[in-house]
């Protein structure tokens, strides 16, 4: 008898759950997953994909000569391959330039997506920009989640005037247009990728805080919390061991799906010129490069199409992938449908 009570209840396997079945049958979900996986692969294998066009500094920091680069970086058995894939030097994020001509150059065999104004290789920028996108997206969501968990957790678990105060602050933050707030922070502090990411995280947390607070209020009312209290557990222990783990699951899943919209905000900022330094592989900046070349010379209005179509497509596709995935997961988790 005691054994039956003490033994953990069997968990329903994820692969046989209703949510997973519903997700699998949704063609839009599969499309989203395919797009996201494609970008993950591009990001992971960025060094191999761009081995033939790396910048001089990047090759130097990898300890490679140009003549060996392709062979070494496309050979998974070499140590350099793994070093470049797992911990590439910062200089590799600089887009190599072919000449310094301010006029963009149409796609060619050597530069399949063309050169942006300033001689920046668009293909290289897009491939390494995928890494930047994931890096920024994951980090910002992580920081925003952390803030949201602390504030939403405190508000939901402690209740009373703390709850009231924290939720009013959250309301104000929630209503404020994010881009404006980020502009304030970036103008006052320095304009580096780190500041921008922190600023966006500071804007993004209220959603998570609200959601967690709601979940915690529901969890708190359940019997096992009372049981833990009756057994003499400290409030901190109840919070960390019982309430939080039972409230946080869906939140983390849904937050991770926000990577797309976070990348969108960062891209909008760098498009405005408030992004990382010029030449850093970043999609928003690549669109910014195109700004002077949207309409071509008289007679050839679409002459420079490649300067904005490729980076624009990369951002839109990335965000689309995450949005499709997010929609499907939300649908699958929604108990109403």
């Amino acid at each position: 008898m005691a054994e039956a009570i003490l033994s953990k209840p069997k968990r329903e396997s994820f692969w046989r759950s209703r949510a997973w079945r519903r997700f699998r049958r949704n063609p839009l979900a599969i499309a989203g997953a395919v797009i996201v996986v494609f970008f993950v692969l591009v990001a992971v294998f960025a060094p191999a994909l761009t081995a033939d066009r790396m910048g001089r500094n990047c090759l130097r920091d990898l300890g490679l000569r140009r003549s060996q680069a392709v062979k070494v970086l496309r050979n998974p058995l070499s140590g350099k391959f793994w070093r470049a894939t797992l911990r590439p030097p910062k200089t590799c994020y600089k887009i190599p330039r072919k000449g310094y001509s301010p006029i963009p150059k149409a796609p060619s065999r050597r530069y399949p997506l063309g050169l942006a104004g300033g001689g920046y290789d668009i293909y290289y920028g897009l491939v390494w920009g995928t890494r930047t996108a994931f890096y920024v997206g994951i980090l910002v969501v992580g920081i925003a989640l952390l803030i949201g968990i602390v504030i939403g957790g405190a508000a939901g678990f402690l209740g009373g005037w703390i709850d009231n105060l924290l939720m009013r602050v959250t309301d104000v933050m929630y209503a404020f247009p994010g881009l404006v707030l980020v502009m304030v922070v970036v103008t006052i502090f320095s304009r580096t990728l780190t500041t921008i990411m922190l600023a966006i995280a500071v804007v993004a947390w209220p959603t998570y805080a609200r959601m967690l607070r709601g979940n915690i209020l529901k969890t708190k009312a359940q019997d096992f919390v009372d049981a833990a209290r009756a057994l003499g557990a400290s409030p901190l222990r109840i919070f960390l061991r019982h309430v939080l783990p039972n409230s946080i699951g869906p939140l983390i899943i849904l937050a991770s799906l926000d990577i797309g919209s976070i990348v969108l905000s960062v891209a909008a900022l760098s498009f405005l010129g408030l992004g990382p330094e010029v030449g850093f592989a970043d999609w928003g900046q690549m669109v910014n490069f195109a700004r002077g070349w949207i309409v071509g010379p008289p007679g050839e209005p679409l002459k420079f199409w490649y300067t904005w179509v490729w980076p624009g497509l990369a951002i839109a596709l990335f965000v689309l992938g995450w949005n499709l995935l997010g929609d499907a997961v939300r649908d699958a988790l929604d108990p109403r449908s």
Partner: protein
Amino acid sequence: MFEFTVRRLLQLPLVLFVVSLVIVGLMQFLPPSARAAAFVQSEQQLAHLDEIIQQYHLDAPFPVQYWTWLKNALHGNLGFSRVEKAPVWDAFKKRLPVSAELALYAFFPTLLVSIWLGVLAAIHRDRLLDQTVRVLSVIFWSIPTFVLGIALVAVVYGYLKLFGIGRLPPNLIIDLANQIAQHRYHPYTGLLTVDGPLNGRWDVAWAALKHLVLPVTTLVLVQGAQLVRVMRSSMLDELGKDYVRTARAKGLPEKVVYYKHARRNALIPIITLAGVMFAFLLNGVVITETIFNIPGLGQWAANAAIQLDQPAILGFALLTAFIVTTANIVVDLLYALVDPRIRYE
């Protein structure tokens, strides 16, 4: 209701106080000379920053500084914008109508189109119409405002040679400036499509409308895509409720069930969302004004942020806070008006 209105309106100064406190607080991270720009009135004064630091106690403790700032701000002195080459307050007056015109022309079509499409999609759930609306909405929701704007500039303006970039064609801008100087054109509201007809200048209004088409389309597509989704799911929620079944059971025509019963209730969450959307619209305005070269608040703010024009950015943030809070108050009041079940005690 009256008491609620008063209480809600009293929140406005409170929110502005908190926001300004945060903003002035953030400014403490800047050196005094950079802060001094927030108190300057003219270009000449920029040369005498030391005196301004003395005069406004910019090396004093924070409460003293905040008090000085507040007194100044209440007198309409929000500092001098380097980008605008004019006081921040003047920039507000000049540029707010420009942005307001863009935002108003985008806001109402967005609401109407997305309510219409959302309801249609919900009624035709899982059929071709619904699938099309859903796929299109997720696509436009994913396209960044700036990419869509650039695409429209390149294809519609550049290739098809339709509509225009900027606010007015250059010859009309010069013409208007002359007319205003000679007091023959009176900018009553600053909105070209309103002032034009009032002054008998229908050509100005027509040109302004033509220049609004592309930025407004950009905003409507991007913002509408989000709203359609909400409207659709809200309508689906309502259609699943008991009163809809009752209405059908008593033999009401489907049209009456959809449009008289379900849609009215489905609109309630949209009102709340419209407030949030207004905030997003401000984000969108910054970007569209930059792309379409419209001399509104957003373009000014974007340039100010790039050139580190702090007084301009801080003023812009304050104004945004004011607009967003006001919009939210209006939404709350509308909410109570529309839904008789909601009562504020």
